């Protein structure tokens, strides 16, 4: 009695696992544990010319009950990936500076978007064409590494 019942439920669970796996392949991230932040809508703007940086944007959500922080990023297509923040002062002057980390509040999210936080891909060696994907590894303070597939988009 017990064995067939359990096997049936196990089969249902496996189907669910495969459905979620299929969803996540297009969406962007792997989720090693529930405390690891999840990433959606990741995209990369290609550099405007040789030796120019590319920018990466995304939404990082933290469903966990403890704050986490993005502390590093890397990609095989760039020599280095820095975390930057663009800020605006009272006169409308916008400036950009590297930041050590981006806090992701517990139960909240943070947007990396034009005019705010962004990844800066320096020394881009090979940029795939628009529509293709760039793999970026994000490192979180407590959540560890998350591998993101970011779509190359103009804009």
């Amino acid at each position, binding site marked *: 009695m017990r064995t067939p019942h359990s096997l049936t439920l*196990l089969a249902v669970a496996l189907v669910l696992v495969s459905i979620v796996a299929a969803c996540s392949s297009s969406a962007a991230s792997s989720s090693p544990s529930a405390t690891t932040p999840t990433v959606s*809508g990741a995209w990369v*703007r290609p550099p405007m010319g040789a030796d120019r940086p590319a920018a990466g944007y995304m939404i990082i959500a933290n469903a966990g009950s403890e704050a986490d922080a993005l502390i590093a990023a890397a990609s095989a297509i760039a020599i280095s990936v820095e975390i930057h923040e*663009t800020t*605006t002062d009272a006169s409308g002057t916008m*400036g950009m500076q*590297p930041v050590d980390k981006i806090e992701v509040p517990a139960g909240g*999210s943070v947007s990396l978007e034009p005019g705010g936080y962004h990844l800066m891909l320096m020394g881009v060696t090979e940029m795939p064409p628009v529509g293709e994907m760039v793999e970026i590894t994000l490192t979180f303070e407590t959540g560890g590494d998350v591998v993101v597939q970011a779509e190359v988009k103009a*804009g």
Partner: protein
Amino acid sequence: MARRPASPGQPSDPAAMFDGAFWLVAVLAAGMVVLMVVRLLADAGGVPGGGAVASAGASGTASASAPSVDVSAYLEPVVTAAPPLELTGPDGQPMSLADFQGAPVLVFFGYTHCPDVCPATIGTVGLAVDAFGEGTRAVFVSVDPERDTIPWLAEFVRFMPGGFTAVTGTAAEVRAVADDWGVRYARVETGDAEAYSMSHTADVFVVDGAGQLRARFPFGTEAPAMIAVLREVAATTVTPTAAPAPSVAPTTAAPSPMPVADLTIEVVSSSVWSGGASPVILALHEATGRINDPTLTVAVQVLAVDGTPAGAPVAAVAIQPRGIADVSYVATVDIPSPGTWNLAVTATDADGTARTGAAGVVARDPGGTAALGAPAPIIDTPTAADFGGDLTWVTTDPAPDPRLSATSTGDALAAGRPFVLVVDSYSFKVTPACGKAVVMAKQLVHRWTDVPFIHHEPYRYTVVTTEPVLEGSLTDPRLTETADAWGTGSQPWGVGSMPWVFVVDGDGIVRAKYQGVMGSADVDVMLSLLDQRG
């Protein structure tokens, strides 16, 4: 930093109703459903979790994605001729805004190493230009002539949408154009000399087909709003019958009898103040490049825009910061009131040959901030030593440089040492500009190891375990006694005006001050000035 358990709560009595395998599967299934919902929400742009949301978007920018656009919000209240714009195009040939007369032109300032703001603006303006058509053009003005040379620009325009061009010039030419357009910019160090960034005004200006400045879009304005404004502007463009070119006036000329200018004057200072004793850092340029002659005798006369002199000419001091080839000339001027003024400059070389030039300058209102030329407030800033070496009570910077918290202003004043006071909050971002001056100071402290850079957190906070917690709120923060004593919360600036930077000389006199954007050249030149005078 303990990780929390990954699964939802466990059943208190697993044997009561179901066996262990069932629970395992049920929990897995429930978890999967939650994950799927989270993904769907995230893909739709929603925010899962429903807790505190930190958004890094540019504040204060117009959101114009709504179908109905309030065109009037973007239009200039008073229509005037567009400021002059005569620089060099990517083909190395002179380019003037007047060349584009007959169709609208969108003008904006940036730099080609900009990875975020400029490409985003180029993308949006490109959509608007493409959709509106009518021969509309876009002009990108580089504020980084050092790196954005003509060959670079030629490469850059290949990556820009159709209808775009890019222009540059000498440092002085670009500065003059930016001043005329009310555009501010400054070099910002990032720690790598090759990879500096530029702060700059990110508005997009709309010039109509008759050369009139008609509208401006703050950063973040979306293409539909731009298109609606372009329609309105095109529909209401009045072509003047006499058709004077919109941009042939010399850049900063006052209408009064001025000597024939053969010098181009660049105002380097990122803050120039009314109310006396304001140092103005000038770079002098001639046709062949920047003049780096420390023996020049340079006099500066403040003029009202109608040419009326304000006070007597002032002698400028030639300054060559250590390790830097460029010579700057610093004149300490008395500008009577906030607003636009002209500076007439006469430079006389060793054999008596005099040359002249002029530049416009916008003087800012000092309000109640510590006055230039007056003694610095005598008040101690806290140091790490006051808290047993615990930096968390002195700075909210999570990666602090202890040198910025080692000296109090009282100690520096008592020792008769020049110092730089940086009043800025790293973590309490009352405005998005907060924290930038601290980052700049952390770079400059490497170059000026013998000068105390003193960082002061302007907002009162307490430390709970290791985290700084603000007293009051981000919209109503409370100034420390020190920040208040320096007047950084005074009108017209208010408590949200951080950062402020003050340069104080060895006699305890406030010699320079900066609000908001500060270029590293400002501090380099001012500290060198204090150095040279001992």
